[in-house]
């Protein structure tokens, strides 16, 4: 068993792909301050597959949002591949997100009026790739998720599992630094969920993707190399690591 990561409330080295230091996130509602994350430290290496578990309100999704540059912390820092993202302006953060993060959502969140091909192509429209190059990338991504024959189908013409495959193809098509999965199997039946998890496994195993996944599903978490537990905004030290 290799040491997948270091975590806790103390200082850590900072040589990983993703380094989180003293991360706090709080919301203010009226006179009340709600601390969603407190003093979180975490280091994730390239190629790691990490699952975050915890009860509702423990801060899992907030952590995912912060790691994905969708939200900014109240305190602390997040460094990805040497770039600290916590102080980036909105525009820079958006550009950073396009380059480094692939999102996979629970509800797939495909654009219903676009075909599978056009949905997968969306991240590439922000690049300088030519039409032919974009087509090549999209075809490859769809082939990787086993949907090359469904590329002209619209989301309503696909099953839940197929839609999530399209969403995965969209997440990987621009070859981001890491993937963030928010309950990727939460809306799927067991069979489809297993298929999706196997696909994510393959992305980590065969394509060396770094995957961070929030899940309530212990069977999904079992697939990860390591499962981290969050409680009341704090990472607890019961790391479950698997070879």
């Amino acid at each position, binding site marked *: 068993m290799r040491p997948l990561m270091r975590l806790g409330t103390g200082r850590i080295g900072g040589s990983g792909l993703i380094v989180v230091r003293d991360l706090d996130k709080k919301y203010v509602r009226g006179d009340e301050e709600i601390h969603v994350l407190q003093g979180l430290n975490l280091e994730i290496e390239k190629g790691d597959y990490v699952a975050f578990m915890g009860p509702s309100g423990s801060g899992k999704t907030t952590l995912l*949002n912060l790691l*994905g540059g*969708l*939200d900014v912390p109240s305190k602390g820092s997040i460094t990805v591949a040497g770039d600290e993202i916590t102080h980036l302006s*909105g*525009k820079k953060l*958006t*550009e950073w*997100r*396009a*380059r480094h993060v692939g*999102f996979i*959502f629970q*509800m797939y*969140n495909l*654009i*219903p*009026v*676009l075909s599978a091909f*056009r949905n997968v192509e*969306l*991240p590439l*429209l*922000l690049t300088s790739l030519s*039409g032919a190059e*974009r087509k090549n990338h999209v075809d490859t991504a769809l082939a990787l998720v086993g949907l090359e024959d469904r590329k002209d189908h619209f989301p309503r013409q696909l099953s839940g599992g197929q839609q999530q495959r399209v969403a995965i193809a*969209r997440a990987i098509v621009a070859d981001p630094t890491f993937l963030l999965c928010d309950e990727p199997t939460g809306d799927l039946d067991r069979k489809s969920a297993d298929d999706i998890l196997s696909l994510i496994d393959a992305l980590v195993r065969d394509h060396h993707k770094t995957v961070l996944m929030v899940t309530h599903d212990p069977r999904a978490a079992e697939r990860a190399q390591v499962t981290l537990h969050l409680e009341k905004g704090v990472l607890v030290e019961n790391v479950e690591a698997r070879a």
Partner: protein
Amino acid sequence: MKFLPLIWANLLRKKVRTSLTIGSFAVALFLFGILAATRSAFGQFEESAGVDRLVVTNKVSLIQPLPIAYRDKIARVPGVTGVTYFHWFGGVYKDEKNFFAQFAIDPENQLKIYNEFSVPDDQWQAFLGERTACIAGRKLAERFGWKIGDTIPIKGTAYQGDWQFHLVGFYKGKRAQDDETQFWFRADYLDEKAEAWAKGRAGWYALKIASLDDAIRVQKAIDGQFANSAFETRTQTEQAMAASFAKQMGNIEFLILSVGSVVFFTLLLVTGNTMAIAVRERTGEIAVLKALGYGDSFLLTFVLFESTLIAMIGAGLGLVLAKILTLSGDPTGGMLPIFYLSPQALTAGLGLGLLVGLVSGALPAYSAMRLRVVDALRRL
């Protein structure tokens, strides 16, 4: 261009709603086009009036004649380079609904003073050579299917009797605003056949002056010359006369502005509401686009482009329909002889469409830009 499928897919998302919004723009801009053509028609005299021409009418009223003897006296006023005269005939061709303007003209000077009109030489020579000859404007001849050689029967009203004219030619205007619906015949024929009260008279005089700077002096000289006579005159520029003539028909400009403003604000509300609904429905999708790396300014532009595209398609459609209608000419049977949609009006219409598209899309676009991804994703 690479974003076109995304824009197009959004436009086709709710086909009925998009069609109705485009339709409302088309109707509004069609209305705008017709109003603009109507305004242009009412302002035709002013638009086609020569800047270097003065008009001399009876001081009492335009319909009161002046002695024909005034022609030479006016011609001798320093600064006047040419004079011609007209009679308004006001006859009926077959049926009263076939209204068109008929003028008895001075064949010697007509084309010298009104050089924006042209008649082929052989046709003009035929006109000069035959007392009962007549010349029709190109559009007038098209309207009734007249050919050279036709006999045009006109029943007199002010000038009693049945009048027969021999059509020997057609005139054309050199500019779009030139009236090609007039009917000209020779004033000497009118003088010969008219009753005694109408002989030796001119309806009004039109004259050219050497210099515009001289207009006021020439006006004063002419009116001074005939002051305290039985036929006092009123001399003014042709444009001033045309403007006062248009004013007699009502404040068309005010009407157009009022209707246009109502249409504009109604459209603004309708499209603003439609765009707001369209953006609200897509909150989740906009959040996803933001998560994928689409920036605030992109989404602002994206929504604005969408609303503007709807507006411009509708505006274009409406204006094309209006143009087609105006190409078929005067819809009133002669009351609005110059009924056309000018390039300026078309440009103004497209500008109006663009403005409404931008303004109506501004608030929804701003909302899309300001949308917090985290909040929107939480609601999904």
